């Protein structure tokens, strides 16, 4: 760990994750295809896990290091489950509506 630390400061990881996160948000806001929105969300999740690992490696006190790592693992699992679930639902929508374009799925409003 220390070795890495000398070469790459924490900020780089944080900036990277921030960029990832923003990209994800951007994607969620701009994409119209439900699946792509889901992908953007995944980007954001990854940003979060990068943060976790980075903090675990750099900032966290000795006894809390493991938490970040574990957290990252959990995030990955949850994300996977999330994708499965979301795709199932999107599939239902596609079956019933013939589209996965979220702008056309606006029967419920006001």
């Amino acid at each position: 760990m220390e070795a890495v630390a000398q070469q790459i400061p924490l900020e780089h990881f944080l900036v990277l994750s921030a960029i990832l996160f923003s990209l994800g948000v951007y994607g969620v806001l701009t994409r119209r295809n439900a699946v792509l929105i889901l992908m953007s969300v995944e980007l954001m999740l990854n940003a979060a896990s990068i943060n976790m690992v980075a903090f675990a490696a750099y900032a966290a006190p000795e006894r809390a290091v493991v938490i970040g790592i574990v957290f990252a693992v959990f995030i990955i699992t949850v994300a996977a489950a999330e994708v499965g679930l979301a795709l199932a639902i999107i599939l239902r929508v596609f079956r019933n509506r013939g589209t996965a374009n979220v702008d056309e799925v606006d029967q419920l409003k006001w």
Partner: protein
Amino acid sequence: MGMTDAWLLPVLPAGAFAVLVLFGPYLPRRGDWLAIAAIFASFVLTFPIIADLTSALAEHGEEFVGAANSIPWLEVPGNLELRLGVHVDAITVVMLVVGSFVALMVQVYSLSYMRGDSRYGWYYAAMSLFAASMLALVLADNFLLLYFAWELVGLCSYLLIGHYSHLRSAAEAAKKAFITTRLGDVGLLIAIILLWRDTGTFGIQEVIAAAQAGEIRTEVLTASVVLLLLGAMGKSAQFPFHVWLPDAMEGPTPVSALIHAATMVVAGVYLVARTLPLFELVAGGPELVLAIGLFTAFLSAFLGLVMTDIKRVIAYSTINSLGLMFVALGVGAPAAAMLYLFTHAFFKALLFLGAGSVIHATERQDVNQLGGLWSKMPLTGVTFAVGAFSMAGLPFLAGFWAKDEILVGALENRVAFSFLLLSLPVTAMYMTRLFILTFLGQAREPEVAKHAHDAPLAMSVPLALLALLTLVTGLVVFDQVGRALGFPGGIGELIFLGEPEVFHFDTGVAAASSELVALGIIAGWFAWAVRPELPQRAAQAFRPIHAMLVNKYYLDDFYQAIIDRVVLAGSRVLAWFDRNVVNDTGVDGSALTTGFMGYLLKFQQTGKLPNYALAMVIGVVALALVAFTLKT
């Protein structure tokens, strides 16, 4: 049974009223006997009171201000103590005698006049209440009880004038009477409270005493006097409140007799006479009363000339007489006023009851449909004549003495005096006219006249008694005669507060008035008996004047216009304002605005997922920005 027990007088008829209202239908003859018994008892009970009073007068003489007796009714912290109490002195006693006697006569008379009426029992109940409240009014020792009774009198007049409630005209007349008098009552109530404010008491004598002691601020006293007068004018039908009185003829004739002769309309005169000391304390107070009285008397006199309804003519004559009484009060001769009131009670009751028996016999009351009844109903004719000429002021009839007393009182005031003299022949003229058109000449509707006949006993007896009194009351003013008639000390002594010599009989004045009256009578005779076409020609000649008189100086129309155009229209405008501005705009408006905000806001829910996400992002960014700015 002394003066302090006088509270019994109103209580008796009041009790009769209560019984009649609650159990009337179950009583034999609907309980009319009970009412009459009660009022008769009250009448009889006046004599011991008179005796007590005269003895008290004999004892204390001058400084006797009367006997009082009262019980607490309602006490409120802040020095508001309301009591019920009686106060008896000479004026009171005169009113008691007149009131109870006339009421008794009228009720007896009604026995046959009202027979078969659908609300016979109710009629007697109301009559009892009327008598009770009038007696209470004159006995009241404080303004509050006076107002109390005052309002009840108004109520009874409302009930009785509207007795034939199935007639629209009766309902309207009753309403008119009540509302008109009530306008005056507003003044009275305000005056009472104002006086209380400065003196802390409602007792009439105490207030007067305080006023004389100068404890009441001048402006307050002035205001309250004017307002008192307002109340009196309302009840006593003084110009411009007189309009209700002729319409009040819609009631049963006996009621008119009671209202005009002894009870309601003289209440105002009584009130002013009671509080005259207050008026005298106010600069111009008496003059105001005088002016109003004079104006009223003068205006009303002419109306008598053109009216064709027998009762209306008498009604205007009443207004005329009331004007005279106010004049007497105005010139500071309360004794004369009370004397006139006393005599007037009898002959005016007589006139109305006579008119009543005419109406009873012919079911007509337009003089143009009457005539030639003299032979058919002699008793009525004679008694009516007595009443009419007493009203006209023919010498040695009751009205003559009283009117001369007033004339003498007014002697100092040239203007008033001359106006009075002017009004004399007019009065005489229209009374003559009335008598002639009703009883003399040819019957204009023969078949009606044919069936006419004198009234049954129950009606004739009161007529006769009243006629007799009309003949003699004038004489009893000389206290010897009074004594002879069994009033120890003579009524004169009572009326003139123990000094008969104040009754000045000025032969000059008497002669003048007699000549004028004679002139009036002759003129009337000439115009309506000898040359009947003359009046029509006169009417043709002076059409506008005639029209004005027939329309009562257009006053009623004027008031009607005010009510319709101003009061009702104004109220409609306000109601519109309340509904459309206050409610629909103010109240509903705010509600609608809230709803509309909801309407606008609901469109943030576009149904499009990215917008939702955007909203969340905006929320985050906004919170973050604010957080940073707060921290740095």
